[in-house]
């Protein structure tokens, strides 16, 4: 029982990441009709916003400490962050400790900026071009973005820990009446799940309750009519792109304490996020979220030793197997609409 609850939690947690990335992807994919292979790169850029932020607030000046030696026997150079000078050591340490959550403040404007820049500078010119051209240009862009990150940050993963208060895990089971130690779950993963839930809810609320959102939803359903109504759909598409980039970026920021970010993490998630979007159904936001959680949970269960003993290797293929079964039984994924990206 504990094992099952734990795997559901794991599934929800994996699912949150899938759902967040897929949500942004399907906003672009389903509304703008653009196959965006650079979406994984946006996720990666978000993660590196966190890395950059925590480096920025640790920008230091060097003090030579004659009492200590480095590995070659020279006097040791000690770095003192400027932030100590500004806020004092105690406040500075707190800020460095909370760098990841704080970097959300930086990531939102940066990611929206990148998204808008991408759309205005590049994607805009590709709305009318064939999907093949969109694939080529966004794939090229994804490579360029990740190579730039590699140039500055290297290829190795960069540890970006959660704040000390949120490190460690939480005995969930005791609350539910299980034995202590039965269901222990890391704080940060719970934070991630809650965060994802909030972002997803915010995106849905935005689309549901604002005029802007209504127009966009109308545009998803029938783009031509909306254009005929004299609404400047282009401008809205730009904003949508910025929004999608921000969602992907935030997913990346908060993901850094779970797994150390590296420059190709976007590519690792790219294929999976396409699978999630398509299983959810093209043009359906709830579909993307549902598929994200569904695939997350199924993946978690497939990696249980009990399952693997019966079906060795099922963990290798389960996501793809589920995708095939879903697409064969439901022609347009779980909640897809007719005619979106079907030709």
């Amino acid at each position: 029982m504990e094992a099952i609850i734990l795997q559901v939690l794991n599934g929800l947690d994996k699912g949150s990441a899938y759902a967040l990335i897929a949500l942004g992807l399907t906003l672009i994919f389903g509304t703008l009709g653009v196959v965006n292979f650079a979406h994984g790169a946006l996720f990666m850029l978000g993660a590196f916003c966190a890395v950059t932020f925590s480096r920025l607030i640790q920008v230091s000046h060097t003090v030579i400490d004659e009492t200590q030696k480095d590995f070659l026997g020279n006097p040791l150079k000690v770095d003192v962050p400027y932030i100590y000078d500004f806020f004092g050591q105690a406040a500075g340490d707190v800020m460095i400790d909370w760098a990841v959550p704080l970097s959300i403040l930086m990531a939102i404007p940066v990611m929206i900026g990148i998204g808008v820049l991408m759309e205005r500078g590049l994607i805009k010119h590709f709305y009318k071009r064939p999907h093949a051209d969109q694939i080529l240009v966004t794939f090229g862009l994804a490579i360029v973005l990740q190579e730039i990150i590699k140039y500055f940050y290297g290829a190795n993963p960069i540890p970006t820990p959660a704040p000390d208060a949120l490190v460690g895990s939480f005995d969930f089971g005791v609350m539910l009446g299980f034995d202590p130690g039965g269901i222990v779950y890391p704080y940060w993963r719970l934070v991630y799940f809650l965060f994802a839930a909030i972002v997803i809810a915010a995106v849905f609320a935005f689309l549901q309750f604002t005029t802007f959102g209504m127009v966009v939803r109308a545009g998803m359903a029938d783009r031509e009519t909306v254009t005929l109504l004299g609404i400047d759909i282009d401008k809205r598409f730009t904003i949508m792109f910025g929004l999608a980039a921000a969602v992907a970026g935030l997913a990346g920021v908060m993901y850094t304490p779970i797994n150390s970010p590296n420059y190709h993490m976007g590519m690792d998630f790219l294929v999976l996020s396409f699978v999630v979007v398509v299983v959810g159904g093209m043009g359906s936001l709830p579909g993307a979220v549902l598929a994200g959680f569904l695939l997350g949970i199924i993946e978690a269960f497939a990696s249980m030793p009990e399952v693997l003993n019966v079906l060795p290797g099922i963990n290798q293929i389960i996501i793809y197997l589920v995708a095939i079964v879903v697409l064969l039984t439901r022609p347009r994924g779980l909640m897809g609409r007719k005619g979106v990206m079907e030709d």
Partner: protein
Amino acid sequence: MTDQTSNAGAVRPQTSKAEKSGLFGLRGKDASLLILVAILTLCAPFILNPFPEGSAMAQFNAGYPDLMQRFVIFGIFAIGFNILFGLTGYLSFGHAAFLGVGSYAGIWSMKLLTLNVIPSILVSIVVAGLFSLIVGWISLRRSGIYFSILTLAFAMMSFALAYSVLTPITGGETGLQLKYFDPRILDGALAEGTTPRANLFGLEMGTSYELAVGNWLFTFNAGYYIAAICMLAAFYLSIRIFRSPFGMMLRAVKSNQQRLNYTGISPKPYTLAAFVISGMYAGLAGGLLVAMDTQVGAERMFWTASGEVVLMTILGGAGTLIGPVLGAGFIKYMENIVSTINKTTLEGWFAFMPDGLSDVFVTIVYPFVGKGWHLTLGLLFMAVVIFLPGGLVQGGQKLAAMFRRDKSGTGATKAAKE
């Protein structure tokens, strides 16, 4: 010299008036294109080695057997992919699986039957064809992005299984290689410790003939020529398919499936046939890879490998005859040549400059070569698709058009076109 399908079927009125077929049943432009490609392929050892050995530019020479083989083999792969994607518009994102399955089949044929490459290539084609029949039969129930994801799913499952659970059959991480103690029922046993080598009735694939002209060294490699002949055959066949009723049906599938259905034609068998044909092309490419270099690793089925052939085709010009081959050459050249340029090489190039200046140049160029070759590749993808929407072929056409405009009225145009 290169033409797009859209006006490819483009049959001029006079040609339909029972003009007798030209080269192997090809007419006019098609025949010239085939001849041109044949000349380029057969003279590749010269064309790809324009710089003398030992010179600073020798770095850019691509006329060594391995790369030449890769050019033509991935050319075959892309030509086959183009039959599916360029004609029917169905974007398969899992074609590398057929290449991989073909390779595994090929190496097992060399392990179990004989080191001769002919049976091995045939086995590759057949097995890849059967596998693509199964995958295609299932995946073609859906269209558009749903089809792409189904093929992707099959390919990723193939990769994941080959890398892990199927290790006894595929060798997993370390891949499959030939051993002297493999059974090989059609060949005599090899002496202990010898290295088994793929051959064509005794002619080993690695055999090379070297020709030195002054400082130039040209390598004529048996394996390359066998692969090149396969490529020419594959290219010829693809022209025939493009021009055939079958090819027209495939373009009709891309254009309007609804009308096709109401014209009494079932699109599915046509797309399935195209899928299987392109799967067999992939199998041929896989078989040739094994014949040239007797080793298979599961990575060649990873999704990035499937993505690569998509990029090759689009980069060269999807739906054009020669585009995919150009795209394949372009990407493989970047991968194999640009990635080997290191700092020392750069310093060599800019050595003629004053110290400070050469450092500046090295610093500017360095991020784009060697370990930064991916960056250059990404930038070039974007540049091509932004400036040449029809791919490299369109670039060629633009150049040709410029050339023609310059010469117009001189009469040279006609001569050049003949």
